């Protein structure tokens, strides 16, 4: 067995971005959201990820702007730390160790240097106030913890600050608790479990009006209650708003408190006018169910997170301005993992009724292809159409999809759709819809592989015991070409489980439980049958290139390899292979074997007895989906164990729906290097000031590169340029008068010599007269400082007078770097 030296299993892209509510910065330019173990910073205008704030070692559970500094952001994590970041530059400023896993956290203006966290104390969740220690250290430990409320809900939507931090409202199950900080007193309000009409009153979320004494709560039955007068135990009142038909998952007031936003499973953003609740605005069909709603601090942007791993940015409840879409991971991937041969994108189930095209190289969702083309009804328990099978042909010009809807009472609804790639729109266009292609569920589908062949052939196998071949028919006189059934066959009434074409398309193998039947697609003749009882063959793969004479199959306990020339079994090994994938660019095959709770990987050539590579316990659980993705450029690894990764990369989905891949050490190093070089700065707008400063910075860098010795001389320059930058960036109306500023500015430039000056004060006092005398000389020397500096090198020459020598000394001590800096710019 070959050891897996430097090959590593890594997570690959597509972490959740809808886990916690995102944060929009004060200037509405950036959007921050928790994504796995990092905080991602997106630009709200370009939808690009600008950078990731990495450092946490656990799942990030919250992001919050620092109330006292709007350029800094706090993040909390399950690793028990709070971190303070500068999000514009992506710098970690401070780490505060709490010691408990943090589930959510809150802050408000009124409570400076206090952060409220929800942590799991023994038995129950508690809201704890943490006083952040004031120290300049990078790493501090928080000691001052005081419990505020106990028995709170870890869901971040269940707690909210009211009236800028005067009170805090928390909901849990059927109880609303309001805690007033001033009075140090809390009030509790209870609801009955269910009302008369059978709705559920359980609280799901809470929001407080920013100016008014009003708390809005959302409930499981779709109602929103507005609580008032809640500082009395008995005299509290509430009014009910009802539009949502199921759970309200998020509530949010706009910063001025004029509107209340609510969202839920229906995927409709509802805007209620505060105090005129009968007036509502709707923004329907935003995508998946709404999980979080946030509003930018100036109220111009709304932002909704959706259950399909998507963030939508909305301009004041009218228009969707940007959509940030992550890899959609449903409960199950019914279609296999596939590669789009054209875009080299990973294709799998996305939103309900869609196929998603996900670029692995750029870790970005390219687009969603609407397969079902029906209005999605957001209602739980409703049977929807699902895309269950999909297949690409070798050139990527045809896509076949199968969608089905299975109801208990009615019969199965099944549609086979054929999509043609349209060069003009660069996407797939529906060509043929075949409703009810089979009587029962389709078990497998594959296209005929050869690229040179004129006819494209699709074979589908179904549980009704038949397999059908579909062929592109000649164009009719009115319409273009469409697909027709070419051939139907069965084998002894057995159910076909999977099918596969040989690499050259001359053979078709269809598995009928224990029997592998081999057909000739040109004549539709049954050529031979292969079988190796016991156990039904579950996966089938033809060898490629030099191994094309082999046919591999897997049963529950064995991996079988037949030689098609002799029609006999070549070899067999006993292993429980769950998934067998062939590399389209080489002879290699990868087998994922399930063994005692974890999955092992073997990469082998059918013709060789020893596997090329093996990796024990790749992940826990079963791996049922995997795919080889061809690389954009070939790797040149010479190590034997990693050669199989040279031309293509292996991706697989674990049972927990994580997308994993294998990387080599060399590749990682290269990636790391390239990521350092890459600076994304496209979020900064191109203003005249930017052009000025940008050029300045560029020149600096050029200088830095070209002449490092020169750079060393001008150490004072960054200081000057920083002050300049500050001067230029501060708004004009807040600046003091120009005369005041000018002297300040000049002083700031001269600041480095002030010490020297004071040191030589005595000297100067003594020689005041002489100075007057030599004023003329001074003028001349100042006007040409460079010359003087050049002359200073020969200062030892006896020709100079005493006064001249002193002046020279002075000039030498003066710092002229600011002048140089000005000249440069």
């Amino acid at each position, binding site marked *: 067995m070959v050891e897996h030296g430097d090959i590593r299993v890594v997570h690959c892209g597509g972490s959740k971005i809808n886990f916690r509510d995102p944060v929009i910065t004060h200037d509405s330019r950036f959007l921050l959201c928790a994504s796995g173990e990092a905080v991602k910073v997106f630009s709200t205008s370009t939808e690009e990820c600008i950078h990731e704030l990495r450092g946490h070692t656990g799942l990030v559970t919250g992001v919050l702007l620092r109330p006292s500094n709007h350029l800094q952001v706090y993040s909390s994590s399950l690793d028990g730390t709070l971190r303070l970041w500068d999000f514009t530059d992506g710098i970690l400023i401070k780490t505060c160790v709490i010691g408990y896993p943090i589930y959510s956290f809150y802050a408000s203006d009124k409570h400076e240097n206090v952060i409220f966290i929800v942590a799991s104390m023994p038995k129950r969740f508690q809201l704890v106030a943490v006083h952040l220690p004031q120290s300049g250290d990078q790493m501090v430990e928080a000691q001052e913890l005081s419990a505020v409320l106990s028995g709170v809900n870890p869901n971040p939507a269940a707690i909210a600050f009211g009236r800028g931090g005067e009170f805090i409202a928390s909901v849990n199950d059927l109880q609303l608790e309001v805690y007033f900080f001033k009075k140090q007193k809390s009030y509790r309000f209870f609801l009955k479990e269910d009302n008369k009409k059978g709705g559920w009153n359980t609280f799901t979320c809470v929001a407080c009006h920013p100016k008014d004494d009003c708390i809005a709560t959302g409930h499981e039955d779709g109602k929103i209650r507005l609580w008032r007068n809640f500082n009395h135990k008995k005299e509290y009142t509430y009014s009910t708003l009802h539009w949502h038909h199921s759970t309200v998952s998020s509530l949010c007031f706009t910063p001025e408190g004029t509107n209340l936003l609510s969202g839920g499973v229906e995927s409709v953003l509802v805007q209620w006018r505060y105090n005129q609740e009968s007036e509502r605005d709707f923004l329907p069909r935003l995508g998946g169910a709404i999980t979080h709603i946030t509003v930018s601090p100036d109220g111009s942007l709304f932002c909704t997170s959706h259950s399909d791993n998507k963030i939508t940015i909305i301009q004041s409840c009218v228009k969707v301005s940007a959509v940030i879409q992550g890899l959609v991971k449903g409960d199950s991937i019914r279609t296999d993992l596939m590669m789009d041969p054209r875009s080299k994108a990973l294709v799998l189930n996305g939103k309900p009724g869609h196929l998603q095209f996900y670029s692995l190289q750029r870790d970005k969702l390219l687009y969603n292809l609407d397969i079902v083309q029906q209005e999605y009804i957001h209602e739980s328990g409703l049977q929807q159409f699902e895309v269950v099978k999909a297949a690409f042909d070798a050139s990527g010009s045809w896509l076949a999809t199968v969608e089905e809807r299975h109801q208990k009472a009615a019969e199965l*609804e099944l549609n086979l759709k054929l999509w043609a790639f349209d060069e003009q729109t660069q996407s797939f266009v529906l060509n043929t819809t075949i409703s009810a292609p089979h009587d029962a569920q389709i078990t497998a589908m594959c296209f005929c592989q050869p690229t040179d062949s004129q006819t494209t052939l699709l074979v589908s196998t179904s549980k009704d015991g038949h397999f059908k071949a579909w062929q592109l028919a000649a164009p009719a006189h009115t319409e273009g070409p469409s697909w027709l059934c070419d051939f139907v066959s069965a084998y002894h009434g057995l159910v076909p489980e999977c099918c596969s074409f040989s690499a050259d398309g001359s053979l078709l193998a269809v598995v009928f439980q224990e029997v592998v039947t081999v057909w000739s697609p040109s004549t539709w003749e049954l050529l031979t049958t292969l079988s190796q009882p016991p156990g039904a063959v579950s996966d089938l793969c033809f060898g490629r290139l030099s191994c094309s004479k082999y046919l591999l199959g897997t049963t529950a306990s064995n991996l079988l390899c037949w030689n098609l020339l002799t029609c006999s079994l070549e070899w067999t090994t006993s292993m429980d292979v769950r998934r067998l994938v062939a590399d389209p660019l080489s002879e290699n095959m990868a087998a994922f074997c399930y063994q005692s709770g974890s999955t092992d990987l073997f990469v082998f050539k059918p013709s060789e007895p020893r596997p090329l590579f093996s990796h024990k316990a790749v992940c826990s659980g079963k791996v049922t989906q995997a795919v080889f993705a061809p690389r954009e450029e070939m790797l040149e690894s010479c190590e034997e164990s990693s050669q199989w990764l040279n031309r293509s990369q292996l991706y697989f989905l674990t049972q927990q729906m994580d997308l994993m891949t294998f990387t080599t050490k060399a590749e990682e190093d290269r990636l790391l290097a390239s990521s350092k070089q890459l600076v994304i700065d496209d979020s900064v707008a191109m203003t005249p000031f930017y052009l000025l400063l940008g050029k300045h910075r560029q020149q600096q860098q050029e200088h830095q590169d070209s002449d490092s010795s020169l750079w060393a001389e001008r150490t004072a320059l960054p200081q000057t340029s920083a002050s300049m930058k500050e001067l230029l960036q501060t708004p004009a109306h807040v600046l003091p008068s120009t005369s005041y500023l000018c002297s300040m500015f000049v002083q700031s430039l001269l600041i480095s010599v002030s010490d020297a000056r004071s040191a030589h004060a005595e000297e100067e006092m003594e020689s005041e007269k002489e100075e007057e005398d030599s004023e003329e000389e001074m003028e001349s020397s100042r006007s040409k400082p460079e010359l003087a500096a050049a002359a200073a090198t020969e200062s030892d020459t006896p020709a100079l007078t005493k006064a001249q020598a002193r002046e020279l000394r002075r000039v030498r001590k003066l710092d002229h770097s600011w002048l140089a800096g000005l000249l440069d710019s």
Partner: protein
Amino acid sequence: MASFKPTKIQVYPKLGEKVTQDTLYWKNYKAPVQIKEFGAVTSIDFSPVTPHNFAVTAFTRIHIYGPFSQEPVKSFTRFKDTAYCGRFRSDGQLLVAGCEDSVVRLFDVSGKVALRLFKGHTKAVHLTDFTSDRYQILTGSDDYTCRLWDIPNATELTTYTEHTDYIRCGVTSKLNRDLFITGSYDHTVKLFDARVEKSVITMDHGQPVESVLLYPSEGLLVSAGGRHVKVWDLLKGGQPLVSLKNHHKTVTSLALSSNGQRLLSASLDRHVKVYNTTNYKVVHNFDYAASILSLGLAPDDASIVVGMTNSILSIKHRKNQEDSKEIAGQQRRRPSYRVFVKGKNYVPKQDDYLVSKPVKEHLAKYDKQLQRFNVSKALDTALGTYIRFRKPEITVAVIKELDRRGTLKNALAGRDERGLSQLLNFIIGNLVDARFTPVLVTAAEMILDIYQSVIGQSPVVDRQLLRLQDLVKREIEFQKDLLEVLGMLDTMFASSLPRKEVPCSGHFEKERCKF
């Protein structure tokens, strides 16, 4: 924010005839002009010379119509009894007609009184024609004889007595003055040569022959009798070429379209069928109100004239090019056209910036209601009279969409007697349509579930439910029968296929063991 996706209306393949060049050609006729005659129209003959008037023989009269007039330009009424077979001479000057009273009359087209009377037949004369030399007349009669007459001196030249039944049809050769063909109720078609005084070729049609027709080349002969139309090759001595059986009643009349590419046959089953003469496939079909006795086709297919048993003469004129041009001209003259085209013909220049206008989406009414979740209203809209009868696929699509949304039960419930009976009517009408069955069965089951408590309260609904029950019973019977037939066919196919041994790995191993 995605837009509302409208309900998908399943497109079903169009059944029935496809639009071909032939359909377009034969559909390009105006609405028929109908003229009431005095009796059944037995014969129509077009004059070979322009302006191609046609003689219509009906009861005791022969009317001559001009190509455009709806009034006869001329009529011959001097018949003692029913007239038969008025035919023009090849110069269009003379007209001959037989009569029930066995006298054959010859008219000048411009005159009124018969120029000559040919007496000699003893029974009604159903066949008259001029020979191609224009000086002789061929007649055939119910007395089983056919005769040749000399026009100038009105004497009988020859009598042929070979037929053994009524002679009802015949045609003279346009190329040879001595050749003529007669068809008789004795099932034979005979080709006579006046020079040898007896029949040269005899063809057995198999049914009483009603009409014969010669191709312009005169190599092929078409005969019609019973339900058959048969084509004979005269150059091969009367060899049968094709037998067509497309009508379901007796074929009474034949005609060739002017270029000889299409053959028309008219029948008592009220249809006129158009055949392609290269492959003898039916390419078009005309329907008429009554059984057709005679058919005439003007030169260049300018009009189709059909005479029927209910004494109606139907004339269809071809739409000419000028008419269609005129319509186009009218459209161009419309002022609104310029308004609509304004700015549309602007060709963008290179630096032009296109400001796109949001396209307004038009949703059908039921889609708008579905968008607002008004499920019952959407179903009502889809059950509107026009959609229900003309586009049942839309109704079914809406029912399917409601089912997908899980709200079909709500939409079906709460209907009064009228609404329910309308719904049941639709289901009864379309349930057995294979395209709609899966959806409508679900709906029908739901209706039964919802309304089972009120069964027996309304006689209308009860009757419909019984009808539905019958329908389902009948359908089940049909399915059973079909399955039986399928089973029989399977066994037949299985037994007819040769059994082929498939090489299998097991065999190889066995053989290896032997070695």
